[in-house]
């Protein structure tokens, strides 16, 4: 097995699917950044480079797919919560369709 090739391929897959994973998680309820990282790790076992999450969230927000709001905390250090926007929900639905089609196609080829 070419481990290096597999590693590079997996990195690309992670990079390409992270925004999809984030949108799926944010469809359930609102999350703040650190909580979102933990949720991704719990469900996917993907070792997310935590700092890269914020540029991605910013991009999703700029695209109008997620919305954010600051919520004050007793500690005095507020949390920034993210949730899927209406446009984000519609986009996610379309992404799920594409993902299902792709999944079916790959399974068909693999048989």
């Amino acid at each position, binding site marked *: 097995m070419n481990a290096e090739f597999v590693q590079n391929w997996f990195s690309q897959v992670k990079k390409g699917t992270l925004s999809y994973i984030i949108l799926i998680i944010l469809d359930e309820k609102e999350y703040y950044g*650190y909580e979102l990282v933990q949720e991704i790790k719990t469900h996917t076992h993907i070792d997310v480079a*935590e*700092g*890269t999450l*914020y*540029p991605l969230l*910013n*991009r999703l927000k*700029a695209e109008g797919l997620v919305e954010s709001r600051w919520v004050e905390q007793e*500690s005095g250090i507020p949390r920034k919560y993210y949730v899927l926007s209406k446009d984000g929900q519609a986009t996610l639905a379309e992404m799920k369709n594409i993902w299902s089609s792709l999944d079916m196609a790959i399974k068909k080829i693999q048989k």
Partner: protein
Amino acid sequence: MKRINFTNTTAQKIYDDYFKRVGRCIKILSADDQLEISMELNSHVYEAIQGAAVQDEIAILVDTLEKLGPPEEVLQPLVAEKKVAQAGRSFNPKHIIQALFLNVNRGAAYFLIALGYLLIISFGSLIIFKLISPSHTGLFVKDGHFYAFGHTSIVPPGASELLGNSFIFIVILLMGLFYFINTMLFRLMNRK
């Protein structure tokens, strides 16, 4: 932004140093964007420390900051994107040039915008040429056909300049037009 206070002085220094680096990475952005980014990273560090099982402040902090990554690397795309957004909002050439510099690796679109700004500078220099050398700068026609627009060191026999001092006005209009087009391009790219 409310800083996190550590009981351990080494932990406090590590924390302060990290946020100094963050500050240096984002100082190019607007005050609002700087505050937004700092507050979000600060919140991340705070929540990570609160959720940690171990009690060693230094170990938790170092682990959290390592997972976040060096600010110079992880913040680069965020700073670049926010700078483009700021440039698209402000029409300020300083922000636009900074955004160009930060996004130089983002492809042909930025190359075109950079070319646009080069044209704007070139048009601006034509105004100076027109003032210094009015007979060699302008819109030249020869034998009823277009010959040159700009500055020419040799005006061939039979060629004449058409615009006179209106050339300066036309060039200013062109500069404004290209400036507007470039900034609109920035806004379009920012939406994508």
